């Protein structure tokens, strides 16, 4: 791994991921598929700067979810490494708040207890934990549902709880895998606006995996476009459109067209 940080591709074009961000450094993953090795990810490198909002898009089968799991420390990479705030990720870490597509709330815990789950394992005092849970519930607007169980919540509300739960331990990075894929279009737009508000007020670094190009253009500072077979970075697109972004804005449409073209060009 010596000299990897000097790689101009990693440092300049893809962002350094420096002290407070994320660096995905020449990550590769080979699966053993029926005795024949399958290359799921090949030489994937990009960075996310501290406080930056980056979306990862790509066609299905490009290894988005595998990459997500590697960054989260849930799956080991075959080659390369992921660094969070300069330290290699060797397993799940509470310095990363992870939000999954299917919410995966703990059904036996109330909203409040779900949000406080990670805090229970931190060294905070009980008073601090309670205050933090209150803040998080306030942040996602679920204070009045604090005593409800997940079964009585809508999909959108469940995902807000999942976001609050991930943010409660105050992680460096918010890592999200198609978090709004399971809700209807109207709820999705509302959640996107809310996520941007949360991002604005917390200043977190966000890495957001999606297959929805318009969603990526709505949210991201930069979009990492992936290509399939093997999964790799096709290009990184800067989104130079002022927020809040309107879908009717010509610049918005141009970015969507550009990213779609990139995905299409790398089938």
């Amino acid at each position, binding site marked *: 791994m010596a000299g990897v940080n000097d790689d101009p591709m990693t440092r300049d074009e893809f962002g350094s991921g420096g002290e407070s961000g994320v660096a995905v450094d020449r990550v590769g993953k080979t699966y053993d598929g029926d005795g024949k090795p399958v290359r799921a990810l090949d030489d994937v490198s990009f960075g996310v700067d501290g406080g930056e909002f980056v979306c990862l898009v790509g066609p299905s089968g490009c290894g988005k979810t595998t990459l997500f799991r590697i960054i989260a420390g*849930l799956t080991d990479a075959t080659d390369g490494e992921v660094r969070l705030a300069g330290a290699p990720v060797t397993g*799940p*870490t509470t310095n990363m708040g992870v939000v999954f597509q299917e919410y995966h709330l703990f059904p036996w815990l109330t909203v409040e207890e779900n949000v406080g789950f990670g805090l229970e394992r931190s060294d905070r005092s009980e008073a601090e934990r309670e205050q933090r849970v209150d803040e998080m519930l306030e942040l996602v607007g679920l204070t009045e549902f604090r005593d409800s169980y*997940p079964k009585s919540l809508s999909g959108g509300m469940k995902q807000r709880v999942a976001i609050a739960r991930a943010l409660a331990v105050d992680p460096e990075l918010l890592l999200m895998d198609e978090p709004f894929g399971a809700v209807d279009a109207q709820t999705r737009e509302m959640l996107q606006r809310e996520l941007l508000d949360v991002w604005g007020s917390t200043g977190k670094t966000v890495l957001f995996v999606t297959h929805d190009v318009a969603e990526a253009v709505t949210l991201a500072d930069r979009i990492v476009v992936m290509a399939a077979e093997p999964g790799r970075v096709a290009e990184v697109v800067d989104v130079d459109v002022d927020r809040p972004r309107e879908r009717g804005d010509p610049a918005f449409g141009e970015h969507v067209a550009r990213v779609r073209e990139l995905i299409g060009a790398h089938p």
Partner: protein
Amino acid sequence: MATDTSSRFDGDELRFGLGLDDPRRLLRGAAGVVGFVVVWHLASLTQPAYVLPSPTAVGDAFAEELASGTMTTALWSSVRHWLPGTIAGTGLGVAAGVAFSWSGLLDDVTAPLVRTLRPVPPLALIGFAIAWFGINDAGAAFIIAVGAFWINFYASYGAVEGVSEDLLDVGRTLGVRGELDMVRSIVLPASLPGILTGVRTGLGRCWMLVVASEIFGVPGVGREILRASNNLLVDTVIAYILVLSLMYLVVDVAFRAVQRRVLVWRA
């Protein structure tokens, strides 16, 4: 909205699964019982009492046994080995089921033993019950515990196997570290519905095993049934069978109430 949910559950607890909150269901149930007793009565007219006694003869036998104090003494004797046998078998069965299912190593080590011991009927172990514990409550409790053990072992084993891998991943990202923490904070609560179904089945099975556990001379309801059978007192046999049914019903209703309270979070 949260209060709506809790009040709905309080209402459910009153029902106890017997349809007590629904007059129509109650009426149909009563009609079924009355119909059965009428058919039984008509059938008993055609048979001698040692083949099929009439419902009234059974009622008389019940009253007689109750008045003489034999029934309450027998019931108390049975409870003295039913309760410790059920508690020990349930506790050990759940503990072993969870442990063997969660730990691949324990599972591998014990799988051949488990498969060898599983088909052994509790009744076949009477020799051991006598040799190890004697003809007393402890010996009878042993027979009951063996029956409870396997039901709870397999229910818990299956429940733990069914715990979603995704919930474990969420736990890992939220700082759950080590097997014990994972089992305590995620595996046990997630598998609790399945475990409690096993406990409930086991409670019923243990009342059935009361008869088997008293076959070698320990006093109790089962002993009274065997004694009456030997004397062809079929009305007394049925009276004591009714005692077992009533005990099963009482325990089941009580357990269901507890189960509903513990699992309020379930959809």
